């Protein structure tokens, strides 16, 4: 053990003496800059956020009887998301060379990787601490909670963050098998929320108990969270030691390649690095047996796209849930409420665009085919058309589900039209985005020096996110028009945007 500790110390000493290593003055500067940023930016932003959440109607929502359940649900979702994220980007992310250097020696991984883990979880701890401080401050200043209860909730957030950090690591250890834990957590969270009393016996439910402010319940919940956090810390070496070289190397290589692609502005390649590859369903029939149906290209490609998507079920489920939730939000944005319709509409349409991503593999294949000798007897535009059926039908189905959910929360009937319009725009925007080439050289090679920095980075962002911005802006305007009673104007706008997207897609295909 002493030998391995010495080896690690020597390794770090050598690494510290490399040419581009940060010096002591660099560290002092980073601490100074961080403190300054917290003081100049962090404090005013936190204050502004607290003020934004302080109107009486928001306070009423935070104090409502169902708020504790919602809080439990939110923390349950956070831990589930961390497990899912861990399978793609775990807390122990090292460049491939460092995987060899640190994880392939005789020194236990619990020793070599602890520092990397600790650095990564600062974000989880910081994020949940910030969340706890903001909502507690809103409630305490609004008179809805005592100062002690507020501090208890912040403490509970911090303890939960320790547990959640370990779950992030568990996601990384499980890698592609993490979906089993994700599905189990989703089922457990849904069951505990639906069954009510059992919620108080779950870690996410303990946050809800502390939120409620009952002194005895809060004390018990904090004791339980403390024990769980201690258990997580004790388990950390075991989990770190069970990290496989393959999992570390895979994520390291994936991120290295993706960052190279991202630096060159090739976001499609960068994101493609993280797309889940199928491992199941290879015997499912993606091509039909009936000659008559198979001859119809629309049917043939609908089936192969659908079966193909089902082969990555967690990814598909994630997309469909995102889409349905987005359409539910879009529907409710048209009902009277505290938030403006344009804001919710834009957010929902943006989420719809993101959800459509998992359905757009056919478009991506068509885009790649545009630059290669033809395998199919269709032009590239025709290929896009035959790959349109599956994403369009699935998105429309999700729009119907979202609308039904929205109706339960008071959405008007006109919301159905709005949902269908955004569904079409979301799918077309995905087709438009799939044909995007590399960024224009003018954005990559001509930094413009101004006192506020290089504004071309903003233009590059707009160029990268053009499809998302188009759909979000359309969603905001259409929702706003629908609330104002001009549904027909909204439909006309959607038709114009849809036509524009098709024309721009054809232009991109011609240029490729």
């Amino acid at each position, binding site marked *: 053990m002493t030998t391995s500790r010495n080896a690690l110390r020597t390794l770090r000493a050598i690494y510290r003496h490399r040419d581009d290593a940060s010096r002591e003055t660099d560290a002092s500067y980073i601490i100074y800059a961080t403190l300054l940023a917290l003081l100049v930016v962090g404090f005013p932003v936190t204050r502004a956020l607290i003020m934004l959440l302080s109107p009486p109607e928001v306070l009423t929502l935070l104090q409502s009887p169902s708020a504790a359940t919602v809080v439990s649900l939110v923390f349950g979702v956070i831990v589930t998301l961390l497990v899912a994220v861990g399978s793609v980007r775990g807390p122990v992310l090292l460049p491939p060379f460092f995987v060899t250097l640190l994880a392939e020696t005789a020194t236990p991984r619990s020793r070599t990787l602890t520092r990397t883990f600790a650095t990564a979880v600062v974000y989880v701890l910081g994020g949940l601490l910030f969340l706890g401080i903001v909502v507690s401050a809103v409630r305490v200043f609004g008179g809805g909670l005592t100062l002690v209860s507020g501090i208890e909730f912040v403490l509970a957030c911090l303890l939960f963050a320790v547990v959640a950090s370990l779950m992030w690591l568990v996601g990384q250890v499980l890698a592609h098998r993490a979906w089993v834990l994700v599905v189990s957590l989703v089922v457990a969270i849904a069951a505990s929320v639906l069954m009510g009393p059992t919620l108080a016996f779950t870690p996410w439910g303990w946050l809800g108990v502390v939120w409620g402010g009952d002194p005895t319940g809060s004390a018990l919940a904090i004791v339980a969270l403390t024990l769980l956090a201690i258990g997580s810390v004790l388990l950390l070496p075991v989990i770190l030691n069970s990290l496989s070289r393959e999992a570390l190397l895979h994520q390291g290589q994936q991120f290295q390649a993706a960052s190279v692609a991202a630096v060159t502005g090739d976001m499609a390649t960068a994101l493609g690095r993280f797309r889940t590859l199928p*491992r199941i369903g290879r015997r499912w029939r993606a091509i039909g047996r*009936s000659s008559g149906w198979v001859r119809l290209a629309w049917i043939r490609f609908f089936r192969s796209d659908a079966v*193909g998507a089902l082969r990555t079920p967690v990814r598909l489920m994630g997309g469909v849930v995102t889409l349905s939730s987005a359409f539910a939000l879009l529907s409710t944005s048209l009902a009277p409420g505290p938030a403006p319709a344009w804001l919710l509409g834009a957010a929902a349409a943006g989420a719809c665009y993101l959800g459509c991503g998992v359905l757009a593999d056919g478009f991506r294949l068509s885009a790649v085919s545009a630059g290669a000798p033809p395998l199919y007897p269709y032009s590239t535009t025709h290929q896009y058309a035959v790959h349109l059926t599956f994403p369009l039908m699935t998105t429309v189905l999700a729009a119907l589900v979202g609308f039904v959910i929205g109706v339960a929360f008071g959405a008007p009937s006109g919301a159905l039209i709005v949902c269908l319009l955004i569904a079409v725009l979301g799918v077309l925007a995905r087709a438009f985005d799939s044909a995007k080439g590399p960024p224009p050289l003018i954005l990559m090679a001509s930094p413009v020096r101004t006192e506020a920095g290089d504004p071309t980075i903003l233009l590059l962002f707009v160029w990268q996110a053009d499809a998302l911005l188009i759909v979000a802006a359309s969603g905001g305007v259409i929702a706003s028009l629908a609330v104002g009673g001009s549904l027909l104007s909204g439909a006309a706008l959607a038709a114009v945007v849809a036509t524009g997207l098709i024309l721009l897609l054809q232009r991109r295909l011609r240029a490729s």
Partner: protein
Amino acid sequence: MYIVGFSQAYAQRVRGGCYIENVDLLGKRVMNPLVSASELGVSFDGQTLVSPTSFHVDEGEALAVLGPNGAGKTTLLRLVSGRLRPSTGTITVCGMAPNEKSPKFRAAVAALLGSPPTASNLTVREHLTLVAASWNAGADVAAARSEFLLEQFGITRLALRYPHELSTGQSQLFALALTLSRSFDVLLLDEPEQRLDAQRVHLVGQILRSLVLHGKTIIMASHNADLVDQVCDRQLEVREVASDNLT
């Protein structure tokens, strides 16, 4: 200028859908070549990628495009496939100027120039069947065609694998099978021997020669002398420095 081979001049038998047949002044039937290039060249910004080259290939003939790395073999194949426009000269394939936007041209020419696009969520067998079915083969015919190709390339055991589960050599065999799963009259191949062991190269050679014997036309860039001998009837030498070369 490169001039390779001479037309067989007389029609034999019309096999392919785009076979061109004419009658000469003496009333004899003469065959126009399936692929005919005259002074075909590519220059870009003062740089010559392909020196002016002339050649023709008849139906049921295989032409090997030879030359060192960077001589322009792949560029020449891209010209024939319609992926690139020539700077000089003319070319016709099945009587058409190469144009990948033309459905008739797409139906006539199959090409493997680099890795073909594949769907990550379809198996090897499904890829072959889907492509075959797209060319108006019925479901049964498409399925039979894919089984035949799997067997022919010795990759039946890989039928249920996804593309990302193949080794580089297996991927090359899959790419070749995928290219052959569609119908065509002219087949363009860029170094089909890539990443294959000697046994697999011989197997590919057998398959390609069999296609030639069945009336298909092949133009193939290659660095493998054994494969060229096994498949090709004639050779076109492409050199970095323009000079006449007739073999």
